[in-house]
């Protein structure tokens, strides 16, 4: 008797569960994008936002986007990995419920309690509000994160269980033998399984570390005499935070591996290099977080050097095999482009381009002048908005089978693409001009960047609105349909 079997008895339609994830994702993405737009408009001085509230909005936008990035890319992962391993729909839905509870607590902390310590809740900032928010508001935020973490923990553990029961060990599911030429690549695990294994390894370890620092932060809130080394806390928080947001791209990329072959009628070929790339990226994603601490002079030098070297290498292996694989699977395949294929293809491109500013910022000499500028939001918006989100939107479009309404979806696609590009370029240019990040009030010289960025963001949101709207139009039929093949 296992929980999994009990879950099976309730007979929830797994496809409907995935669509529920995506419905929540679509709405939350739009709301969080509007929060982001609010900040850009405020910086552009086109609307008036009190600085205190700006930081509430910034915190909510950050926490909300990181959370929904995790949730939506987990939907991609779960949908495809189900094809190869037994997983529990009940656990999958439990994660959604925990997420929603956590989201309510976090939104309450921000919009009712005024919590604005940034989503990274750096110790001991939550306990030092300067009167802007109460201890209970900070606790509500931290408990909200714990709820979300517990949900994801359960989901990843369940996938781990499924992988262990099918492949015996995580190493085998990652394709370690294939990576080192010890077993033929043709007998290696499917890409979705390899990617899921990497994601669950990174996220489970990250969540364990995050849980520890969250508990410590909570105790510190209520018993302030219990303190903790702030630099150690920052290490733990970024170990968790960096890993969690970074892994979203590795979950979402499964959409590329599974969707492009459908439209090109070619199999996604895996070879030893593919598995080696995933093995290396697994190691890197777990060790790269120190590039968030390049400005902390108290860190041991070797960790910073490692942070620089690893962040140059970190994303590259999987990115290279994925970009190369994408090109080979598309090249001369006779693919007739449709919005779903175009979105996942764009996702790979956005990811590849977004890595370039990351490599610049991962360099200590550059970091010390660039890290607190808008260069960094420029980098992560490139690879998240135009990479990870594009893959998720592609997946949403793919599931809701868009044939009858291609024209409408194409409009959404182009608005999203053009607006998104303008939006991230405004960030990057502002960063290159040393416009600081996280400033509620901007001086006159910075306004042009903010205004161009605001326009780009508005156009991009219009595009996403169209794509999400037509997802909702197709959702009813999609629940009972089959995946396009």
């Amino acid at each position, binding site marked *: *008797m*296992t*929980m*999994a*079997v009990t*879950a*099976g008895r309730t007979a929830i339609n*797994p496809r409907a569960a995935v669509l529920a994830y995506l419905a929540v994702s679509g709405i939350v993405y739009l709301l969080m994008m509007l929060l982001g737009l609010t900040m850009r408009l405020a910086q552009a001085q086109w609307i008036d936002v009190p600085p205190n509230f700006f930081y509430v909005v910034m915190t909510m936008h950050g926490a909300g986007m990181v959370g929904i990035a995790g949730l939506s890319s987990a939907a991609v992962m779960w949908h495809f990995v*189900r*094809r*190869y*391993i*037994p*997983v*529990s*729909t009940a*656990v999958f839905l439990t994660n959604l419920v925990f997420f929603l509870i956590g989201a309510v607590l976090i939104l309450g902390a921000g919009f009712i309690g005024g919590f604005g310590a940034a989503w990274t809740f750096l110790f001991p900032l939550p306990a030092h509000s300067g009167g802007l928010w109460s201890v209970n508001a900070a606790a509500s935020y931290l408990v909200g994160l714990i709820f979300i973490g517990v949900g994801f*923990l*359960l989901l990843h*553990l*369940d996938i*781990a*269980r*499924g992988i*262990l*029961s*099918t*492949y*015996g*060990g*995580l*190493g*085998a599911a990652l394709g370690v033998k294939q990576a080192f030429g010890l077993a033929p690549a043709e*007998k290696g695990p*499917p890409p979705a399984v390899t990617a899921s294994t990497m994601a669950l*390894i990174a996220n*489970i*370890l990250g*969540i*364990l*570390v995050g*849980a*520890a*620092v969250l*508990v*410590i932060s909570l*105790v510190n809130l209520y018993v302030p*005499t*219990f*303190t*903790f*080394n702030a630099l*150690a806390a920052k290490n733990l928080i970024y170990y968790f935070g960096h890993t969690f947001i970074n892994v979203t791209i590795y979950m979402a990329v499964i959409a590329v591996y599974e969707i492009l072959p459908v439209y090109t009628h070619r199999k996604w070929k895996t070879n030893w290099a593919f598995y080696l790339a995933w093995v290396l990226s697994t190691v890197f994603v777990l060790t790269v977080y120190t590039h968030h601490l390049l400005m902390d002079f108290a860190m041991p030098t070797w960790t910073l050097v490692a942070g620089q070297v690893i962040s140059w290498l970190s994303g590259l292996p999987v990115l290279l095999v994925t970009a190369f694989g994408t090109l080979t699977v598309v090249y001369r395949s006779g693919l007739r482009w449709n919005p779903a294929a175009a979105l996942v293809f764009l996702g790979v491109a956005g990811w590849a381009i977004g890595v370039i500013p990351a490599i610049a910022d991962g360099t200590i000499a550059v970091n010390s002048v660039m890290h607190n500028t808008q260069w960094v939001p420029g980098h992560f918006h490139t690879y998240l908005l135009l990479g990870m989100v594009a893959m998720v939107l592609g997946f949403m479009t793919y599931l809701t089978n868009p044939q009858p309404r291609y024209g409408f979806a194409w409009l959404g696609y182009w608005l999203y693409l053009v607006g998104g590009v303008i939006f991230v370029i405004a960030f990057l240019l502002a960063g290159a001009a040393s416009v600081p990040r996280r400033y509620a009030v901007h001086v006159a010289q910075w306004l042009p960047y903010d205004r161009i960025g605001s326009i780009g963001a508005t156009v991009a949101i219009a595009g996403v609105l169209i794509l999400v709207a037509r997802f909702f139009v197709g959702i009813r039929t999609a629940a009972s349909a089959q995946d396009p093949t």
Partner: protein
Amino acid sequence: MSTRRLLVATCGSWLVLWLPAVRGGLERDMALHMAVQMPLLIALGALVAAATCRFEPRWLAAADWLGIAGIAAVVLGTSFWMVPRALDQAIADWRIDLVKFLTLPLLVGMPLGLSWRRMPPLGRAFIWANFIPKLGAVGGLYLGAPMRLCAYYRLDQQELAGWTLIAVAVALGITWFVAAFIGWTPSCGKRPSRPSVDGAGRQRALHASAA
């Protein structure tokens, strides 16, 4: 080893731990108290449970559905004996120490031995995933505490205990991860049959593993 021998050995070990010299020696230091004596007491109970699980009354096995009640006892029991005040009381008063010597094997160790087998893999993993960070966080708090938490332990002992708990948490985390990575499972008893959820998923899984 026969059941009887094992029982004799366990009771003997219990008595050895209760010897004033051993008891005092292990309780003189916070790290030894928390990371050696208490786990040993729990292990004794778990051993007894493993040796005598055949005699477990059927109603108990049935009521302990999926091992949930038993593991709840383990979580609550270990939490109780992690309260600094409880440590102080156990040192100050031998009668309270006797309560500790009885409750840890009987109300924590035995439920652990009996219920762990019943708990499905996801439940076990979840318990591990909760236990490891909790241990690390408690260790971290011991390090950061500005005052002595126990009247009977020095600040340096408290710090050592903090580092010990963190080290144990990290070691458990690594062991757990490595075991999952290479696919190692403890070989005692029968492994639970492979769970299946969605018929289609299962078929594809079998297909994939056959291919």
